[in-house]
């Protein structure tokens, strides 16, 4: 099983049971097809996406696993952050449908051929897709929610540490003085 991959692709050995290989967006469907037919990696178990904002790309990871569930192979595919569509794998793997739906909502990535790209977890979200790096959750929170003002005995941790240090210092100084 490994030999086929070794022969045809530049396989990265991450651990003895976890491999990775890089594909381009165009190669993806073809490679997947080859791998699922020629090796035992025939199950899609996870679809990941990492936002490398400084490199202007999303890195999608198609995690494949074999029928024995003993080895994992990750197909990595980088796409530009602005041109965000991918071919859908829904016809290849039934479970891809919902994973793509999730990434669509969280990153705004379109999947051509997936009919179910409606709301997944969020209802009526009209801001930047939340998992993109440029989305600042704290700013969003500040804009949309009110925080409860703290208790009266609520202490600012940093101030308090400083105060205590100062107190300890002065306490140290006082006995020396006395």
């Amino acid at each position, binding site marked *: 099983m490994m030999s086929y991959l070794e022969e045809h692709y530049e396989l990265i050995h991450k651990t003895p049971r976890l491999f990775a290989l890089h594909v381009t967006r165009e190669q993806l469907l073809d490679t997947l097809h080859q791998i699922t037919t020629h090796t035992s990696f025939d199950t899609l178990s996870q679809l990941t996406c990492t936002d490398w904002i400084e490199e202007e790309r999303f890195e999608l990871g198609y995690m494949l696993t074999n029928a024995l569930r003993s080895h994992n192979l990750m197909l990595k595919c980088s796409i530009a952050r602005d041109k965000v569509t991918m071919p859908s794998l829904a016809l290849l793997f039934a479970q891809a449908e919902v994973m793509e739906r999730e990434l669509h909502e969280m990153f705004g990535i379109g999947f051509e051929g997936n009919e179910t790209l409606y709301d997944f977890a969020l*209802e*009526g979200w009209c*801001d930047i897709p*939340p998992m993109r790096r440029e*989305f600042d*959750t704290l700013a969003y*929170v500040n804009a949309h*929610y*009110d925080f409860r003002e703290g*208790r009266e005995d609520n202490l600012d941790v940093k101030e308090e540490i400083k105060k205590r240090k100062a107190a300890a210092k002065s306490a140290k100084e006082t006995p020396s003085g006395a």
Partner: protein
Amino acid sequence: MDEGFIPYQQSLEDEEQSIKSTQSVIEQAIAWFRAHSMFVLAYGTGCGAIEMPPTFTSRYDIERLGVVGVATPRQADILIVSGYCSPKTLKRVIRSYEQMSEPKYIIGLGSCTINGGMYWDSYNTIKKLDDFLPVDMYVNGCMPRPEALIEGFVKLQEKIRANSSEAGYIQYRTRYAHYRANQERLFGTQVQPRYEENFAGMNL
């Protein structure tokens, strides 16, 4: 009682004695029955739902206090909001609360309902439940233990017996505009039906 988040509760407890003396016998009896029979709509909005089963089953057996779980909001007296609320859930919680019959009370379970708790910087959880719904009793902790929840019920019993005009459902009725404005601000265009419109208050 010096710990935890209690200023609002504390203020109520202080008033309790003075209110009690002004109640008639019948009012006291009614309040007693209300306090000793609490039908709970346990809405498992978040993690808090996991401590609900122990509370209701043989280890902690909250049925001793007359607390019973019911299935639908119509039958319930007390709504437990068990943990963080995403706006999507909050809509359903509000809907359920509005379908309950007065007098109705809310127990906010867990730190997340008080101030967002662990998820203080999450874009999808609310930080202050009492902006949107009148919370009668908060039980803090992450997770609050079943004992804490029972304590919350006992305190709520006291509050119900005090028959205070500060009770949440009265607040919700009288200050509906305030709560509604907060809800609308959060939900934007996707608002729920208006509580006032649903109930014409017609007496048959």
